[in-house]
């Protein structure tokens, strides 16, 4: 079971993020309001930082008793987090935290390293699946904490119909609504989007490089591939062997294209490189490096077959280097 950290204001969220190992995921939660255990609740889910090439993706959920929730949440200013300023979002999260008698929240900060590792596994695990599983995980954790969840509102990832079907199969007892732009339609999703966005911004801004590199004025920008500050950061922070620091999502084409141009070649039999299909595929397979060179001028002598024991272990008699 993953550890769940508790925070009761924006400052605590920030210090929790800073003290965590940023190559791993982090779950932060409010305390669970007693009223959410006794009364039927609505729960909203939204995400922040799905598109950027830098930093974590954050899944957020907010929940509260169903009665009168829309008006109470609107009074707090819960709306689409993207339409608000950063300061305003911080203030609203603090307000959300102050209403802990009836309003709870939880976020999962998915490390950029975990995103890359997932997407670059042997068995492809798409960003959509990562997202769905994060949402499912949050619902499970909130229910496990004792919250009486009845209705779930989710901002869609991929086609809403199949996502809704997936969620309904896992949670048959819940009424599930999956919609695009749910964060502006349902205040409880708006609240979730604020929790997610504040955490995402904080994690990106306060990133400490375990590689020990220092960036003046923390100038890596928003992380969106189109941001000139982000572009500059990417082109100036390349290690020829290891590529980028782990703030960067290697699985984004923006990142892999830069590495292809500016870092040393890395290849392996089992790494898929979809962009190299067809005519561009000029690079040799790693196996070629281990094949003995055929000497065309010499009539090939009768070579005694090595015993399978040695062949399987790649053992050869070494007389020259």
């Amino acid at each position: 079971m993953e550890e769940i950290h508790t925070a009761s204001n924006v400052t605590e969220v920030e210090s929790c993020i800073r003290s965590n190992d940023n190559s791993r995921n982090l779950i932060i939660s409010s305390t669970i309001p007693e009223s959410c255990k006794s009364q039927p609740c609505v729960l909203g889910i939204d995400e922040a930082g799905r598109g950027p090439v830098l930093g974590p993706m954050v899944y957020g959920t907010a929940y509260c008793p169903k009665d009168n929730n829309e008006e109470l949440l609107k009074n707090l200013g819960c709306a689409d987090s993207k339409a608000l300023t950063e300061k305003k979002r911080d203030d609203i999260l603090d307000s959300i935290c102050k209403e802990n008698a009836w309003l709870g929240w939880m976020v999962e900060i998915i490390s950029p390293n975990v995103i890359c590792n997932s997407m670059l596994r042997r068995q492809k695990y798409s960003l959509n699946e990562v997202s769905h599983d994060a949402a499912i995980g949050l619902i499970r954790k909130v229910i496990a904490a004792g919250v009486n969840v009845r209705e779930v509102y989710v901002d869609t990832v991929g086609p809403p119909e199949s996502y809704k079907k997936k969620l309904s199969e896992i949670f048959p007892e819940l009424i599930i609504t999956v919609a695009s732009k749910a964060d502006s339609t349902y205040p409880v999703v708006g609240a979730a989007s604020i929790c997610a966005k504040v955490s995402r911004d904080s994690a990106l801004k306060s990133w400490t490089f375990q590689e020990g590199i220092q960036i003046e004025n923390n100038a890596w920008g928003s992380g969106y591939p189109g941001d000139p500050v982000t572009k500059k950061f990417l082109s100036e922070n390349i290690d020829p062997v290891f590529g980028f620091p782990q703030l960067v999502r290697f699985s984004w084409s923006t990142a892999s294209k830069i590495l292809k141009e500016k870092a040393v070649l890395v290849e392996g039999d089992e790494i898929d490189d979809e962009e190299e299909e067809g005519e561009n595929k000029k690079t040799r397979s790693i196996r070629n490096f281990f094949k003995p060179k055929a000497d065309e001028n010499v009539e090939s002598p009768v070579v005694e077959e090595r015993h399978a024991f040695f062949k399987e272990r790649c053992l050869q008699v070494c007389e020259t280097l």
Partner: protein
Amino acid sequence: MSITLNINTDVLESPKTSSVHSMPFYIDHDGPANVSKYFSSYLKPSSSDNALDASFRGLPLKGTSISVPDGFKGLIFTETNQHQAEDDERNFFLKDNFNKITYWNYDKLPSKNDAIVSALDWIHISQAVSILVLNQQW
């Protein structure tokens, strides 16, 4: 062509400081690399199995520590002059020694199916075979 291995006994007997990583890729680089900053700093025991976890350019790696068998030593040699022709004289110098390798697979637990792990069988077998020959009465 002749090959000379220059073994400095100080280096041979020095405490084993080098950490050697076997990577599951061909990396087109020969020279120093920022291993401790970019790689070892993220190396940690896995939470789901008893392997080691690390990443290389975002790729998930599974690793295990392989000890050099008792009575043996791992040696690292460097060649200072690039050799030109086939029959040039070649000089290798002992750079460091090691007693374990961290062996990495790409998203797959290291096992006896990996050549490097099973290759060490030969050390025991070769000893057994040699003893047999040495004890032979002629």
